[in-house]
Protein backbone atom coordinates (compact mmCIF):
# COMPACT_ATOMS: atom_id res chain seq x y z
CA UNK A 1 0.00 0.00 0.00
CA UNK A 2 1.46 3.32 -1.03
CA UNK A 3 1.86 6.56 0.86
CA UNK A 4 0.63 10.00 -0.13
CA UNK A 5 2.33 13.17 1.07
CA UNK A 6 0.15 16.25 1.33
CA UNK A 7 1.02 19.84 2.25
CA UNK A 8 -1.43 21.20 4.80
CA UNK A 9 -1.55 24.91 5.63
CA UNK A 10 -3.52 26.82 8.24
CA UNK A 11 -4.34 30.53 8.18
CA UNK A 12 -6.59 33.25 9.51
CA UNK A 13 -5.82 32.23 13.10
CA UNK A 14 -6.46 28.47 12.67
CA UNK A 15 -2.72 27.88 13.01
CA UNK A 16 -3.16 28.65 16.73
CA UNK A 17 -5.08 25.38 17.08
CA UNK A 18 -2.19 23.46 15.52
CA UNK A 19 0.78 24.41 17.62
CA UNK A 20 1.04 27.85 15.97
CA UNK A 21 2.61 26.22 12.94
CA UNK A 22 1.26 27.30 9.56
CA UNK A 23 2.69 24.70 7.18
CA UNK A 24 2.72 20.94 7.75
CA UNK A 25 3.88 18.10 5.51
CA UNK A 26 1.87 14.98 6.22
CA UNK A 27 2.22 11.44 4.89
CA UNK A 28 -0.85 9.21 4.91
CA UNK A 29 -1.73 5.84 3.39
CA UNK A 30 -3.36 6.03 -0.04
CA UNK A 31 -6.14 3.74 1.19
CA UNK A 32 -7.92 4.45 4.48
CA UNK A 33 -10.84 3.05 6.50
CA UNK A 34 -14.27 4.22 5.38
CA UNK A 35 -15.62 4.55 8.90
CA UNK A 36 -13.52 7.52 9.95
CA UNK A 37 -11.26 5.39 12.13
CA UNK A 38 -7.81 6.89 12.44
CA UNK A 39 -5.17 4.19 12.42
CA UNK A 40 -3.08 4.22 15.61
CA UNK A 41 0.53 5.21 15.17
CA UNK A 42 1.85 1.75 15.99
CA UNK A 43 -0.32 -0.02 13.47
CA UNK A 44 1.55 -1.81 10.71
CA UNK A 45 -1.30 -2.24 8.25
CA UNK A 46 -2.10 0.29 6.91
CA UNK A 47 1.32 1.92 7.25
CA UNK A 48 1.64 4.48 9.99
CA UNK A 49 0.59 7.99 9.23
CA UNK A 50 3.58 10.28 9.50
CA UNK A 51 4.16 13.96 9.64
CA UNK A 52 7.08 16.25 10.13
CA UNK A 53 5.60 17.35 13.44
CA UNK A 54 6.69 15.99 16.77
CA UNK A 55 4.40 13.34 18.24
CA UNK A 56 1.40 14.93 19.86
CA UNK A 57 -1.03 13.68 22.47
CA UNK A 58 -3.90 11.86 20.87
CA UNK A 59 -7.05 13.89 21.38
CA UNK A 60 -9.69 11.82 19.72
CA UNK A 61 -10.98 8.30 20.07
CA UNK A 62 -8.64 5.73 18.59
CA UNK A 63 -9.90 2.32 17.72
CA UNK A 64 -7.90 -0.64 16.54
CA UNK A 65 -8.51 -1.78 13.03
CA UNK A 66 -10.06 -5.07 13.98
CA UNK A 67 -11.26 -6.03 10.54
CA UNK A 68 -9.41 -8.93 8.99
CA UNK A 69 -7.61 -8.32 5.70
CA UNK A 70 -10.58 -9.43 3.66
CA UNK A 71 -13.14 -7.48 5.63
CA UNK A 72 -11.56 -4.04 6.02
CA UNK A 73 -13.68 -1.49 4.23
CA UNK A 74 -11.37 1.06 2.72
CA UNK A 75 -11.59 4.04 0.43
CA UNK A 76 -8.98 6.19 -1.31
CA UNK A 77 -7.53 8.90 0.94
CA UNK A 78 -9.88 11.88 0.84
CA UNK A 79 -10.28 15.26 2.50
CA UNK A 80 -12.87 13.85 4.90
CA UNK A 81 -10.28 11.46 6.30
CA UNK A 82 -7.65 14.21 6.37
CA UNK A 83 -9.91 16.42 8.49
CA UNK A 84 -10.45 13.65 11.00
CA UNK A 85 -6.75 12.88 11.00
CA UNK A 86 -5.88 16.52 11.66
CA UNK A 87 -8.39 16.76 14.49
CA UNK A 88 -7.19 13.53 16.08
CA UNK A 89 -3.46 13.81 15.62
CA UNK A 90 -2.37 17.37 14.95
CA UNK A 91 -4.81 19.61 16.75
CA UNK A 92 -3.50 20.77 20.11
CA UNK A 93 -6.47 22.67 21.50
CA UNK A 94 -10.15 23.57 21.19
CA UNK A 95 -11.31 21.01 18.58
CA UNK A 96 -14.71 22.74 18.43
CA UNK A 97 -13.01 25.68 16.69
CA UNK A 98 -11.88 23.37 13.87
CA UNK A 99 -14.76 20.97 13.24
CA UNK A 100 -18.47 20.90 13.84
CA UNK A 101 -20.04 17.50 13.26
CA UNK A 102 -18.44 15.88 10.24
CA UNK A 103 -17.15 19.02 8.53
CA UNK A 104 -15.23 22.21 9.25
CA UNK A 105 -16.93 24.71 11.54
CA UNK A 106 -18.73 27.71 10.03
CA UNK A 107 -16.34 30.45 8.93
CA UNK A 108 -13.62 28.07 7.70
CA UNK A 109 -12.92 27.79 4.00
CA UNK A 110 -11.02 24.80 2.60
CA UNK A 111 -8.85 25.32 -0.46
CA UNK A 112 -7.56 22.46 -2.59
CA UNK A 113 -4.64 23.50 -4.81
CA UNK A 114 -5.80 27.12 -4.72
CA UNK A 115 -9.41 26.24 -5.53
CA UNK A 116 -12.47 26.50 -3.28
CA UNK A 117 -13.11 22.93 -2.13
CA UNK A 118 -16.75 23.13 -3.17
CA UNK A 119 -15.58 23.00 -6.79
CA UNK A 120 -13.55 19.88 -6.01
CA UNK A 121 -16.15 17.74 -4.25
CA UNK A 122 -15.53 18.95 -0.67
CA UNK A 123 -14.79 16.06 1.72
CA UNK A 124 -15.09 13.48 -1.05
CA UNK A 125 -12.12 14.92 -2.96
CA UNK A 126 -9.51 12.17 -3.39
CA UNK A 127 -6.09 13.44 -2.40
CA UNK A 128 -3.15 13.03 -4.79
CA UNK A 129 0.49 13.05 -3.84
CA UNK A 130 1.76 16.63 -3.59
CA UNK A 131 -1.65 18.26 -3.14
CA UNK A 132 -1.73 21.52 -1.21
CA UNK A 133 -4.70 21.83 1.12
CA UNK A 134 -5.37 25.05 3.03
CA UNK A 135 -7.74 25.55 5.95
CA UNK A 136 -8.39 29.23 6.43
CA UNK A 137 -10.62 31.12 8.79
CA UNK A 138 -12.49 34.09 7.41
CA UNK A 139 -11.29 37.40 8.85
CA UNK A 140 -13.56 40.20 10.05
CA UNK A 141 -11.12 42.91 11.07
CA UNK A 142 -10.40 46.09 9.21
Amino acid at each position, binding site marked *: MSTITVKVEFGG*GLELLFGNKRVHSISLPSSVPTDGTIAPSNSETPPPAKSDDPPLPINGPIRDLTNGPGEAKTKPLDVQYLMHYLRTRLLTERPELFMEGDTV*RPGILVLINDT*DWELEGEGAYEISDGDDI*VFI*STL*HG*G
Partner: protein
Amino acid sequence: MDTGPTKDGLLHTSDYLRYGRQMILDGFGLEGQVKLQRSSVVVVGAGGLGCPALQYLAAAGVGRIGIIDHDKVELSNLQRQILHSEQTIGQQKARSAAEAIQRTNSNVQVNPVTEMLNPLNAISLLQSYDVILDCTDNAPTRYLLSDTAVRLGKPLVSGAAQKYEGQLYIYNLGKDGPCYRCIFPKPPASQTAGTCEETGILGVVTGIIGNMQALETIKLITGLHDGNATLLLFSAIGSPAFRTIKLRARKPTCPACGQGEMSHIIEETDYITFCGGARPNWLEQGLMTG
Protein backbone atom coordinates in the same frame (compact mmCIF):
# COMPACT_ATOMS: atom_id res chain seq x y z
CA MET B 1 -7.69 76.72 -11.86
CA ASP B 2 -10.54 74.68 -13.33
CA THR B 3 -12.39 76.07 -16.29
CA GLY B 4 -15.65 74.22 -16.59
CA PRO B 5 -16.74 71.10 -18.44
CA THR B 6 -14.94 69.98 -21.57
CA LYS B 7 -16.70 68.82 -24.72
CA ASP B 8 -15.69 65.19 -24.40
CA GLY B 9 -17.04 64.43 -20.96
CA LEU B 10 -14.28 65.40 -18.56
CA LEU B 11 -15.27 67.94 -15.96
CA HIS B 12 -12.32 70.26 -16.29
CA THR B 13 -9.66 70.98 -18.86
CA SER B 14 -7.02 70.61 -16.15
CA ASP B 15 -8.09 66.97 -15.80
CA TYR B 16 -5.99 66.10 -18.85
CA LEU B 17 -2.96 67.15 -16.84
CA ARG B 18 -4.11 65.64 -13.54
CA TYR B 19 -5.06 62.24 -14.93
CA GLY B 20 -2.74 62.14 -17.95
CA ARG B 21 -0.52 59.36 -16.54
CA GLN B 22 -3.44 56.93 -16.44
CA MET B 23 -5.28 58.25 -19.49
CA ILE B 24 -2.37 57.22 -21.74
CA LEU B 25 -2.62 53.60 -20.61
CA ASP B 26 -3.77 50.91 -23.05
CA GLY B 27 -7.30 49.91 -22.11
CA PHE B 28 -7.90 53.01 -19.97
CA GLY B 29 -7.79 56.21 -22.01
CA LEU B 30 -10.20 59.11 -22.01
CA GLU B 31 -13.04 56.62 -21.93
CA GLY B 32 -11.82 55.10 -18.68
CA GLN B 33 -11.40 58.50 -17.10
CA VAL B 34 -14.91 59.58 -18.07
CA LYS B 35 -16.29 56.33 -16.64
CA LEU B 36 -14.51 56.99 -13.34
CA GLN B 37 -15.77 60.54 -13.25
CA ARG B 38 -19.36 59.46 -13.84
CA SER B 39 -19.14 56.70 -11.24
CA SER B 40 -19.97 56.67 -7.56
CA VAL B 41 -18.46 54.51 -4.84
CA VAL B 42 -19.37 54.15 -1.18
CA VAL B 43 -16.77 53.10 1.37
CA VAL B 44 -18.23 51.64 4.56
CA GLY B 45 -15.64 52.13 7.29
CA ALA B 46 -13.01 54.88 7.27
CA GLY B 47 -10.47 52.85 9.23
CA GLY B 48 -7.44 50.77 8.29
CA LEU B 49 -8.90 49.51 5.02
CA GLY B 50 -11.11 52.47 4.17
CA CYS B 51 -8.37 55.13 4.43
CA PRO B 52 -6.02 53.78 1.74
CA ALA B 53 -8.94 52.76 -0.48
CA LEU B 54 -10.42 56.27 -0.27
CA GLN B 55 -7.07 57.86 -0.96
CA TYR B 56 -6.55 56.12 -4.30
CA LEU B 57 -10.20 56.28 -5.38
CA ALA B 58 -10.15 60.05 -4.90
CA ALA B 59 -6.74 60.46 -6.53
CA ALA B 60 -7.89 58.44 -9.57
CA GLY B 61 -10.90 60.70 -10.07
CA VAL B 62 -14.00 58.75 -9.00
CA GLY B 63 -16.81 61.30 -9.38
CA ARG B 64 -18.71 60.82 -6.15
CA ILE B 65 -17.53 59.08 -2.99
CA GLY B 66 -19.62 58.23 0.07
CA ILE B 67 -17.91 57.56 3.41
CA ILE B 68 -19.93 55.85 6.14
CA ASP B 69 -18.44 55.68 9.63
CA HIS B 70 -19.90 56.55 13.01
CA ASP B 71 -16.63 56.31 14.96
CA LYS B 72 -14.36 59.08 16.11
CA VAL B 73 -10.61 59.27 15.53
CA GLU B 74 -8.47 57.94 18.39
CA LEU B 75 -4.71 57.91 18.91
CA SER B 76 -4.66 54.12 18.55
CA ASN B 77 -6.01 54.51 14.98
CA LEU B 78 -3.04 56.51 13.69
CA GLN B 79 -0.80 53.43 13.46
CA ARG B 80 -2.73 52.47 10.28
CA GLN B 81 -5.62 54.83 9.49
CA ILE B 82 -3.51 57.14 7.42
CA LEU B 83 -6.09 59.77 6.44
CA HIS B 84 -6.50 60.83 10.04
CA SER B 85 -3.95 62.86 11.98
CA GLU B 86 -3.04 64.01 15.44
CA GLN B 87 -5.06 67.17 14.74
CA THR B 88 -8.26 65.23 13.92
CA ILE B 89 -8.27 63.05 17.05
CA GLY B 90 -11.78 63.25 18.50
CA GLN B 91 -13.40 64.22 15.17
CA GLN B 92 -15.77 61.97 13.24
CA LYS B 93 -13.73 59.61 11.05
CA ALA B 94 -16.06 60.15 8.10
CA ARG B 95 -15.41 63.91 8.21
CA SER B 96 -11.67 63.62 8.88
CA ALA B 97 -11.33 61.27 5.91
CA ALA B 98 -13.51 63.45 3.69
CA GLU B 99 -11.38 66.52 4.39
CA ALA B 100 -8.18 64.61 3.70
CA ILE B 101 -9.27 63.35 0.28
CA GLN B 102 -10.69 66.73 -0.67
CA ARG B 103 -7.22 68.20 -0.13
CA THR B 104 -5.90 65.81 -2.77
CA ASN B 105 -8.76 66.22 -5.20
CA SER B 106 -11.26 69.02 -4.73
CA ASN B 107 -13.14 67.91 -7.87
CA VAL B 108 -14.47 64.78 -6.19
CA GLN B 109 -17.89 65.10 -4.59
CA VAL B 110 -17.54 63.60 -1.11
CA ASN B 111 -20.50 62.63 1.10
CA PRO B 112 -19.50 61.79 4.67
CA VAL B 113 -22.15 59.95 6.72
CA THR B 114 -21.69 59.70 10.49
CA GLU B 115 -24.67 57.42 11.13
CA MET B 116 -24.00 53.79 11.97
CA LEU B 117 -25.01 51.49 9.12
CA ASN B 118 -27.88 49.25 10.26
CA PRO B 119 -30.63 47.12 8.72
CA LEU B 120 -33.04 50.06 8.71
CA ASN B 121 -30.88 52.52 6.80
CA ALA B 122 -28.59 50.28 4.70
CA ILE B 123 -30.68 50.32 1.53
CA SER B 124 -31.22 54.05 1.54
CA LEU B 125 -27.60 54.89 2.39
CA LEU B 126 -26.10 52.60 -0.26
CA GLN B 127 -28.55 52.60 -3.15
CA SER B 128 -27.26 55.66 -4.98
CA TYR B 129 -23.75 54.21 -5.48
CA ASP B 130 -22.37 51.97 -8.24
CA VAL B 131 -19.90 49.97 -6.13
CA ILE B 132 -19.85 49.23 -2.39
CA LEU B 133 -16.61 48.71 -0.44
CA ASP B 134 -16.75 46.69 2.76
CA CYS B 135 -14.01 48.15 4.97
CA THR B 136 -15.73 47.26 8.23
CA ASP B 137 -14.49 45.32 11.21
CA ASN B 138 -17.26 42.96 12.33
CA ALA B 139 -19.27 40.00 11.09
CA PRO B 140 -22.85 41.33 11.49
CA THR B 141 -22.12 44.38 9.33
CA ARG B 142 -20.40 42.16 6.76
CA TYR B 143 -23.56 39.99 6.42
CA LEU B 144 -25.73 43.10 6.29
CA LEU B 145 -23.57 44.63 3.55
CA SER B 146 -23.67 41.41 1.53
CA ASP B 147 -27.44 41.08 1.79
CA THR B 148 -27.85 44.74 0.85
CA ALA B 149 -25.48 44.47 -2.13
CA VAL B 150 -27.51 41.48 -3.37
CA ARG B 151 -30.79 43.36 -2.94
CA LEU B 152 -29.39 46.37 -4.81
CA GLY B 153 -27.65 44.27 -7.48
CA LYS B 154 -24.26 45.93 -6.92
CA PRO B 155 -20.76 44.45 -6.57
CA LEU B 156 -19.33 44.42 -3.04
CA VAL B 157 -15.55 44.73 -2.83
CA SER B 158 -14.83 43.26 0.55
CA GLY B 159 -11.53 43.51 2.43
CA ALA B 160 -10.54 42.12 5.81
CA ALA B 161 -7.34 42.16 7.83
CA GLN B 162 -6.17 40.80 11.15
CA LYS B 163 -2.72 40.36 12.60
CA TYR B 164 -0.38 39.66 9.66
CA GLU B 165 -3.07 38.50 7.25
CA GLY B 166 -5.50 39.96 4.77
CA GLN B 167 -8.28 38.71 2.51
CA LEU B 168 -10.03 40.28 -0.46
CA TYR B 169 -13.28 39.06 -2.05
CA ILE B 170 -15.60 40.61 -4.60
CA TYR B 171 -19.12 39.44 -3.76
CA ASN B 172 -22.16 39.53 -6.01
CA LEU B 173 -19.99 40.04 -9.08
CA GLY B 174 -21.86 39.84 -12.38
CA LYS B 175 -24.37 37.06 -13.01
CA ASP B 176 -22.59 34.21 -11.27
CA GLY B 177 -20.47 35.66 -8.47
CA PRO B 178 -21.26 34.31 -5.00
CA CYS B 179 -22.41 36.46 -2.10
CA TYR B 180 -20.97 36.26 1.41
CA ARG B 181 -23.71 33.81 2.44
CA CYS B 182 -22.97 31.52 -0.52
CA ILE B 183 -19.51 30.94 0.93
CA PHE B 184 -20.25 31.32 4.63
CA PRO B 185 -23.93 30.42 5.08
CA LYS B 186 -23.52 30.20 8.84
CA PRO B 187 -21.56 32.84 10.74
CA PRO B 188 -18.68 31.66 12.88
CA ALA B 189 -19.07 31.33 16.62
CA SER B 190 -18.54 34.78 18.08
CA GLN B 191 -15.51 33.71 20.13
CA THR B 192 -13.58 33.07 16.91
CA ALA B 193 -14.26 36.46 15.36
CA GLY B 194 -11.75 38.77 16.95
CA THR B 195 -11.51 42.48 16.22
CA CYS B 196 -8.31 44.38 15.45
CA GLU B 197 -8.46 45.70 18.98
CA GLU B 198 -8.35 42.20 20.42
CA THR B 199 -6.09 40.36 17.98
CA GLY B 200 -3.83 43.15 16.78
CA ILE B 201 -3.00 44.28 13.25
CA LEU B 202 0.16 45.25 11.44
CA GLY B 203 -0.88 48.59 9.94
CA VAL B 204 0.54 48.17 6.46
CA VAL B 205 -1.44 44.93 6.00
CA THR B 206 -4.59 47.05 5.95
CA GLY B 207 -2.79 49.35 3.53
CA ILE B 208 -2.12 46.54 1.07
CA ILE B 209 -5.67 45.16 1.22
CA GLY B 210 -7.21 48.66 1.07
CA ASN B 211 -5.09 49.46 -1.98
CA MET B 212 -6.25 46.21 -3.60
CA GLN B 213 -9.87 47.20 -2.88
CA ALA B 214 -9.32 50.52 -4.66
CA LEU B 215 -7.66 48.73 -7.57
CA GLU B 216 -10.46 46.18 -8.00
CA THR B 217 -13.04 48.98 -7.82
CA ILE B 218 -11.24 51.00 -10.50
CA LYS B 219 -11.04 47.86 -12.67
CA LEU B 220 -14.78 47.20 -12.23
CA ILE B 221 -15.69 50.76 -13.18
CA THR B 222 -13.38 51.07 -16.18
CA GLY B 223 -14.06 47.59 -17.56
CA LEU B 224 -10.54 46.27 -16.87
CA HIS B 225 -11.85 43.53 -14.57
CA ASP B 226 -12.01 40.02 -16.03
CA GLY B 227 -15.28 39.25 -14.23
CA ASN B 228 -13.99 36.24 -12.32
CA ALA B 229 -14.79 36.08 -8.62
CA THR B 230 -11.55 35.18 -6.88
CA LEU B 231 -10.27 35.38 -3.34
CA LEU B 232 -6.91 37.00 -2.71
CA LEU B 233 -5.13 35.72 0.39
CA PHE B 234 -2.26 37.71 1.82
CA SER B 235 0.15 36.93 4.61
CA ALA B 236 2.81 39.50 5.49
CA ILE B 237 5.02 36.75 6.91
CA GLY B 238 4.07 33.89 4.59
CA SER B 239 5.89 32.67 1.54
CA PRO B 240 4.52 33.24 -1.01
CA ALA B 241 2.86 36.33 0.45
CA PHE B 242 -0.07 36.24 -1.97
CA ARG B 243 -2.25 33.51 -3.39
CA THR B 244 -5.23 33.76 -5.68
CA ILE B 245 -8.07 31.30 -5.09
CA LYS B 246 -10.75 30.23 -7.54
CA LEU B 247 -14.17 30.53 -5.88
CA ARG B 248 -17.45 28.67 -6.23
CA ALA B 249 -20.30 30.19 -8.28
CA ARG B 250 -23.45 31.70 -6.81
CA LYS B 251 -25.47 28.99 -5.05
CA PRO B 252 -29.03 28.41 -6.26
CA THR B 253 -29.92 27.46 -2.67
CA CYS B 254 -28.48 30.62 -1.08
CA PRO B 255 -31.14 32.33 1.06
CA ALA B 256 -29.81 35.76 0.03
CA CYS B 257 -28.97 35.50 -3.67
CA GLY B 258 -30.35 32.09 -4.75
CA GLN B 259 -33.42 31.21 -6.77
CA GLY B 260 -35.74 30.94 -3.80
CA GLU B 261 -34.25 34.13 -2.40
CA MET B 262 -35.97 35.46 0.70
CA SER B 263 -37.29 38.84 -0.36
CA HIS B 264 -37.22 40.19 3.16
CA ILE B 265 -33.98 38.67 4.37
CA ILE B 266 -32.60 42.00 5.56
CA GLU B 267 -35.76 42.85 7.46
CA GLU B 268 -36.05 39.32 8.86
CA THR B 269 -32.44 38.74 9.92
CA ASP B 270 -31.43 39.64 13.42
CA TYR B 271 -27.79 40.13 12.48
CA ILE B 272 -26.57 40.35 16.05
CA THR B 273 -28.14 37.11 17.18
CA PHE B 274 -27.26 35.50 13.83
CA CYS B 275 -23.60 36.22 14.57
CA GLY B 276 -23.78 35.04 18.16
CA GLY B 277 -24.02 38.44 19.77
CA ALA B 278 -20.76 39.85 18.41
CA ARG B 279 -20.24 43.50 17.78
CA PRO B 280 -21.59 46.00 16.73
CA ASN B 281 -23.85 46.77 19.60
CA TRP B 282 -26.96 47.80 17.75
CA LEU B 283 -28.90 46.78 20.84
CA GLU B 284 -27.37 49.52 22.92
CA GLN B 285 -28.20 51.99 20.24
CA GLY B 286 -31.85 50.94 20.44
CA LEU B 287 -31.96 50.07 16.77
CA MET B 288 -32.96 46.45 17.13
CA THR B 289 -34.94 44.44 19.56
CA GLY B 290 -32.83 41.36 20.07
